[in-house]
């Protein structure tokens, strides 16, 4: 008995050992907020958090009545429709998105009466909002259990078995199954619940996808712990649903027939005339009527009236109901009696059959003839027949299939935190068409509205207008035939009659102003139409009536008949009023106004004024064509624009073609920032190698590319001068930051070489690398503005010569200043016209003022105009000679002298009071000469002019001398969905990077000849007119410079030093860079259990990193307990692109800057998959989140293992743990099997075990074992011990002591390095203790090599992970 018991224990123990060994790797957490999913089925993990009250705030997300927790309904109004939110307690997003969901069976939604769902949630879940996590959990269980019961299973679309809500609400699939299994458990254990479900299914007549039918498959999963509150809610919900189903109204149909029955006209004569009465009956059929308890069916007449009003039709009184019958029950039979039934439910109190009729009779009364003097209305012949409408409404009870329960208009809603975030489905709601406050579950507003349309002829004596019109039209005589009668009945016969009469008048030659009926036609509002008025207006004008005097034209205007086309046409003809009205009518149309302006022929026309006044306001586009046209009619502004822009190209070149070469990887667009839209896409998983291609939108791409440029403009050089176009400054060299002669713009290209999907078996690892390649920064100038430079350098030389001449002039004046004497003369100097100075005197002024100015040639030299270019060092000759002092030369001055001195001396030689004395004049002259000379001493002004000249050359040369250097430092982070290790949170996220930045190279296009040179684009750099070179020499052109030398100043050809000029017309820089990025986290594989740690403090770890093609990559471990499925790894690139802030010049990034200076704040995100325990073939079933729809896709599993073992989870097809290397899968179990063998023939029937038969190691081992056979038992054992009862008890005690330390899996193994391999020689401390007698004497015989390296033997072959061959052997 004792041994039998022991045997059972051992068997159980073995099972436990297997699971415990795996479980120890999983380190699984099984509880969630105090609730536990039933073990052992559930062994996943979950992150739990105690939620704070803030998580339950709904005020920012959902419009709730009063915005308090006590609301019964939460609803949100979208486009006039309401959305009920049934599980909004966890709303924590500022913005929620809603999307449709389908029930398990698409038809089940239509079959499920929506009110049922609404009420049940109201009763079961939402009546009280959560007060804490426990409360929420109870509600959550109830909600999810109920959702599953009605057929909605919340699965994520991926096969990662997670419903990833939030970090605080992370339910793996097992837990979701536990929700549904809990519902199944409740259904099975509670007869009342079963009855509720039965009632619902029968009441809704569900034939498939019945309520509760989806639950049994989750029977193995359920939540333990106290979920009684959740069950109460769940049960209450189902009860409410069942109750509601019981009370569901019928789907009775009501329809009024088009057929009516009418009585004959009953005529009676009275004092007023002939009174006519007529009655018309309408009949409605009601079918499928079924009364509903406590829910009355409603039908009522709301209103009855003539469509044109009683007065218009001429009836004696309004139409009235004179008879009502329901299912044969006459409710009233006179108009007086029936008047009390208007607006009243006529079905009330009636016991009605399934099918019946509602009959309503309407009475009409009026005079067809009115006696003279009577004051009663006459039935209007023009309104026969008289149309009328009866309004009615119905609903409730038997009709309640309508109203709020128009379930076909309802949709299920899943709320999400992001618009396309299918992983974050959290809320369930109902979406329906409701026009009333949803908190009011009943109300007449839910009644359906209906109308009955009818016509009745009460006056049978009317001659038909159409007959009169026809006859009159034939005779065309207003004083004869039917026309006379038509004139009498013109009002009755309406517009057609007036039109005919008017036409007859006109045809008879009556001037329009004298017509009678045409005037009437225009006077009657109901007969006016713009076409007719326009016709009559034109006719009146043709008959000599001024437009302002024409009634028809005025009416045309007051009717606002003129169209925008009319107005602009008139405006074009010069009518300012029309132009003004065109504006008043908001007719603005850029093309229309522009064409009117051009066609007007003059820029000063009203039409052009209209266009010019409004084009800026309207943002009318301007281009070369418009400028040309406007210039042609005299707009000088447009002429200037046309000349300033390279419009000649625009006429022959497609937009943007000139910059295609520069932005070839980008889209052409209006923004300065280009990002290839193809980047923002899912990346298809093709192949498993690093160098395989990607598939983007069905197009195979080697790499993912995008680039940035800082300029966009059409039909232009690469650079646009307008500052608004250059949004981002991508280089900073001050040489060209604000250079007058050139602009420098840049572009940056990037190509991302992202890794593809990786396969990995649970318990192993994967890794990846990525690279950013083809990084290329190119900066380029526009055409360097040499023409402007030549203008500037000419002016600078002129300034130098001018300064030199002035220097010499004032220097001479200063040297002779003491010689200047003012003298008075009484003789008229020779050459002066003295007779005009008869009243004055003559003053002889110093001769210095009479010099012929000595000047240097004011000539300059340039590229284009080399005039008499002197040889080097030639000194320029004076053109004139410097004059000397000559008192013999005098000027005739009176009044104001050359120095601005006012004086006057009369005939008596008397100086007037305000005149200076001659000494004073001489003093003033001397003072001025001193001042002028002082300003020029040393050639100050000459030097300043030369400095400006040098500065201009330097600025021009800077266009060829700028430098730039790429600031390339991308930040790449990564992560992957490994959640099994508790210490993964500390994994470094930034990838290791290796950046290579190449040297900058500069390219130039040179031109030495005259002229502007060709317009070139980037593609043409190497083909520019005068050749291309990587280096250049300055042009040795000659310019004029001057300088002071000794006592004089001289001008030379620029030579000391010579200022040389760049010949470069275009320049660009090129620089390449690249970077590679690898995971940075170094994990340690702890021997022998395979646990993962981020450090090796235990000394038992082996670093997880491998060399791949000479590149060492860190490896990313995947836990053995990770279930089969598709998980994702993420790559996040930031800090790419560069621009410089206009304000402080600081560096910013185009994408993903970690500073505030980022053009686009979001990083470049990439995600791809790693496939756990999934064989290659099954990958054809799906890709990431998006269902596969390409030609290689299949909805069925294809490939090895799919024949019998496949299991489709959503869109993912997965198979059991059948792939090579898969030793354990959480769901499929282990593929490791123990087998007892014979040593002489290990596999008598062969084996598929790949560790024995698929490689040399296995076959050689097999041969060696079989060769030795049973003889091994004759040899020396590796270990021999004798276990006595005493030793046995000691070992049992040891075992007991280790129960809390892992039992048999306790930590007794220490592994040492063996050969060149780490941790392969593993020793047991227990065996050492056993041998040494720790547990008593065991008579141990031990391999003498134990403790030395020869105790183990390594496999002599080459290890190969691909072939599943390791170095260890025996």
């Amino acid at each position, binding site marked *: 008995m004792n041994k039998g018991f022991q045997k059972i224990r051992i068997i159980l123990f*073995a099972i436990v050992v297997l699971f415990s060994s795996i479980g120890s*790797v999983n380190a699984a957490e099984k509880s969630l907020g105090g609730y536990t999913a039933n073990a052992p089925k559930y062994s996943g993990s979950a992150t739990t958090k105690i939620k704070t009250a803030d998580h339950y705030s709904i005020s920012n997300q959902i419009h709730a009545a009063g915005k308090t927790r006590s609301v019964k309904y939460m609803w949100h109004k979208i486009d006039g429709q309401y959305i009920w939110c049934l599980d909004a307690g966890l709303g924590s997003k500022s913005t929620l998105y809603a999307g449709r969901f389908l029930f398990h069976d698409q038809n089940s939604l239509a079959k499920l009466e929506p009110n049922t769902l609404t009420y049940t949630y109201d009763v079961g879940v939402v009546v009280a909002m959560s007060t804490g996590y426990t409360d929420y959990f109870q509600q959550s269980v109830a909600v999810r259990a109920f959702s599953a019961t009605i057929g909605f299973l919340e699965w994520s679309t991926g096969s990662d078995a997670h419903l990833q809500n939030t970090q605080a609400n992370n339910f793996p699939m097992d837990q979701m199954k536990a929700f549904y299994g809990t519902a199944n458990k409740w259904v099975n254990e509670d007869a009342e619940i079963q009855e509720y479900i039965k009632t619902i299914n029968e009441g809704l007549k569900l034939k498939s996808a019945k309520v509760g039918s989806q639950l049994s498959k989750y029977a193995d999963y359920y939540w333990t712990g106290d979920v009684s509150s959740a069950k109460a809610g769940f049960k209450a919900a189902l009860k409410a649903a069942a109750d509601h189903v019981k009370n569901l109204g019928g789907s009775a149909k009501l329809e009024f027939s088009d057929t009516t029955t009418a009585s004959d006209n009953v005529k009676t004569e009275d004092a007023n005339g002939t009174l006519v009465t007529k009655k018309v009956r309408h009949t409605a059929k009601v079918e499928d009527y079924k009364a509903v308890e406590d829910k009355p069916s409603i039908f009522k007449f709301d209103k009855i009236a003539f469509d044109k009003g009683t007065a218009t039709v001429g009836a004696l009184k309004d139409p009235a109901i004179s008879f009502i019958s329901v299912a044969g029950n006459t409710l009233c039979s006179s108009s007086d009696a029936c008047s009390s039934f208007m607006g009243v439910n006529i079905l009330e109190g009636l016991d009605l059959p399934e099918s019946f009729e509602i009959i309503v009779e309407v009475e009409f009364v009026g005079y067809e003839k009115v006696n003279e003097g009577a004051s009663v209305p006459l039935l209007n012949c023009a309104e026969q027949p008289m149309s009328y409408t009866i309004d009615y409404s119905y609903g409730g009870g038997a009709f309640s299939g309508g109203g709020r329960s128009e379930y076909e208009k309802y949709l299920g809603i899943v709320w999400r935190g992001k618009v396309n975030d299918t992983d974050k489905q959290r809320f369930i709601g109902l979406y329906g068409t409701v026009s009333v406050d949803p908190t009011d579950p009943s109300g007449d507003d839910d009644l359906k509205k209906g109308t009955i349309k009818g016509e009745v002829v009460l006056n049978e004596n009317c001659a038909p207008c159409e007959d009169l019109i026809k006859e009159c039209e034939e005779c065309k005589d207003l004083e004869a035939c039917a026309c006379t009668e038509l004139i009498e009945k013109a009002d009755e016969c309406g517009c057609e009659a007036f039109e005919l009469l008017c036409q007859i008048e006109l045809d008879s030659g009556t001037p329009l102003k004298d017509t009678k009926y045409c005037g009437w036609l225009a006077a009657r509002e109901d007969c006016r139409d713009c076409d007719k008025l326009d016709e009559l207006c034109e006719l009146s004008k043709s008959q000599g009536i001024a437009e302002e005097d024409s009634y028809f034209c005025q009416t045309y205007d007051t009717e606002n008949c003129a169209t925008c086309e009319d107005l602009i046409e008139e405006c074009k003809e010069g009518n300012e009023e029309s132009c003004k009205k065109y504006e008043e009518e908001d007719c603005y149309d850029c093309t229309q106004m522009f064409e009117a302006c051009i066609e007007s022929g003059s820029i000063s026309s009203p039409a052009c004024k209209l266009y010019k006044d409004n084009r800026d306001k309207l943002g009318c586009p301007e281009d070369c064509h418009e400028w040309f046209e406007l210039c042609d009619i005299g707009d000088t502004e447009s002429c200037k624009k046309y000349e300033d822009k390279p419009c000649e190209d625009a006429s022959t070149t497609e937009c943007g073609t000139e910059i295609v070469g520069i932005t070839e990887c980008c889209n052409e667009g209006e923004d300065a920032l280009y990002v290839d839209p193809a980047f923002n896409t899912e990346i298809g998983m093709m192949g498993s190698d690093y160098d395989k291609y990607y598939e983007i939108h069905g197009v195979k791409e080697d790499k993912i590319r995008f680039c940035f440029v800082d300029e966009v403009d059409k039909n232009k050089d690469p650079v646009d001068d307008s500052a608004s176009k250059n949004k981002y400054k991508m280089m900073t060299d001050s040489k060209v930051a604000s250079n007058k002669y050139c602009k420098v713009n840049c572009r940056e290209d990037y190509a991302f070489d992202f890794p593809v999907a990786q396969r990995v078996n649970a318990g192993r690892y994967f890794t990846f690398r990525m690279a950013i390649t083809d990084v290329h920064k190119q900066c380029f100038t526009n055409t360097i503005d040499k023409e402007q430079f030549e203008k500037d350098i000419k002016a600078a030389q002129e300034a130098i010569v001018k300064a030199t001449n002035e220097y010499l002039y004032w220097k001479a004046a200063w040297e002779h200043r003491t010689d200047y004497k003012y003298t008075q003369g009484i003789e008229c100097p020779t050459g002066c016209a003295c007779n005009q100075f008869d009243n004055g005197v003559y003053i002889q002024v110093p001769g210095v003022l009479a010099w012929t100015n000595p000047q240097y040639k004011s000539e300059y030299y340039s590229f284009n105009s080399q005039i008499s270019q002197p040889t080097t060092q030639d000194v320029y000759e004076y053109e004139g000679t410097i004059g000397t002092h000559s008192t013999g030369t005098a000027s005739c001055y009176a009044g104001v002298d050359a120095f601005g001195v006012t004086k006057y001396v009369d005939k008596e030689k008397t100086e007037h009071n305000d005149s200076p004395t001659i000494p004073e004049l001489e003093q003033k002259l001397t003072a001025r000469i001193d001042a002028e000379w002082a300003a020029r001493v040393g050639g100050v002004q000459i030097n300043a002019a030369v400095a400006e000249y040098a500065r201009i050359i330097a600025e021009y040369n800077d266009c060829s001398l700028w430098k730039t250097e790429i600031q390339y430092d991308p930040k790449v982070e990564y992560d992957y969905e490994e959640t099994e290790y508790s210490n993964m949170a500390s994994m470094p996220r930034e990838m290791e990077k290796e950046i290579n930045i190449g040297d900058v190279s500069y390219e130039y296009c040179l031109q030495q000849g005259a002229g502007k040179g060709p317009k070139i684009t980037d593609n043409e750099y190497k083909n520019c007119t005068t050749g291309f070179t990587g280096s250049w020499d300055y042009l040795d052109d000659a310019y004029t410079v001057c300088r002071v030398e000794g006592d004089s100043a001289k001008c030379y050809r620029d030579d000391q030093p010579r200022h040389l000029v760049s010949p470069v017309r275009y320049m660009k820089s090129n620089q390449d860079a690249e970077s590679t990025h690898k995971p940075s986290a170094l994990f340690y594989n702890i021997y022998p259990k395979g646990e993962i740690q981020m450090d090796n403090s235990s000394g038992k770890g082996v670093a997880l990193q491998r060399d791949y093609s000479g590149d060492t990559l860190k490896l990313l471990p995947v836990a053995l307990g990770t279930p089969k499925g598709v998980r994702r790894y993420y790559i996040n690139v930031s800090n790419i692109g560069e621009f410089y802030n206009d304000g402080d010049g600081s560096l910013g990034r185009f994408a993903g800057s970690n500073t505030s200076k980022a053009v686009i704040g979001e990083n470049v995100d990439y995600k791809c998959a790693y496939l756990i325990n999934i064989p290659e073939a099954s990958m054809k079933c799906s890709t990431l989140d998006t269902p596969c729809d390409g030609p290689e896709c299949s909805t069925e599993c294809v490939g*090895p293992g799919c024949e019998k073992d496949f299991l489709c989870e959503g869109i993912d097809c997965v198979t059991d743990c059948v792939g090579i290397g898969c030793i354990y899968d959480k769901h499929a179990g282990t*593929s490791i099997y123990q087998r007892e063998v014979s040593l002489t023939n290990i596999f008598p029937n062969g084996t598929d075990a790949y*560790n*024995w038969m698929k490689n040399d190691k296995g076959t050689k081992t097999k041969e060696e074992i079989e060769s030795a056979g049973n003889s091994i038992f004759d040899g020396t054992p*590796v270990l021999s011990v004798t276990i006595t009862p005493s030793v046995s008890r000691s070992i049992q005690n040891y075992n007991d002591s280790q129960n809390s330390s892992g039992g048999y899996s306790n930590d007794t193994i220490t592994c040492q390095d063996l050969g060149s391999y780490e941790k392969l020689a*593993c020793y047991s401390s227990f065996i050492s203790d056993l041998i040494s007698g720790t547990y008593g004497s065991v008579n141990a015989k031990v391999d003498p090599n134990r403790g030395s390296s020869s105790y183990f033997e390594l496999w002599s072959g080459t290890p190969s992970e*691909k072939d599943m061959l390791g170095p260890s052997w*025996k």
Partner: protein
Amino acid sequence: MSQSYWGYWLVVMGVAVIGLMVSVQGITTNTTQDFYSLREITDASMLEAVDYAYFRDYNEIKIDKEKFMEVFVRMLAESMGGTDTYEVNFYALYEAPPKVSVEVKSNSGTDFINVGEYDTVSRISSVLQIYAKGVGTV
């Protein structure tokens, strides 16, 4: 009297036969139990000795032979009777691919038919196999 003696002898012979049958049955039962225990313990010990760290590094299933011997002895101690004595011998242990051979000698306590020190010798050899239906590489 002589007839009554025959009766006594008959009773004595019966008792002796019963004693012999009990002893033989004990040997037989012990052998059977040891065999099944040995199989189960071997199976569990091999699985317990799987080196998962080695699998992660080399993609091959390996057992640690010392861990196998340790778990085997510890489990055997749990399954032994209170008066049993076992001699355990481990032969030709291969770690990868895993193969073990174990010999267990036990004493039933029936000394009069014991041919040596131990009256039962059990031997078992086992391997761990990895099945894979798929074809491909990771």
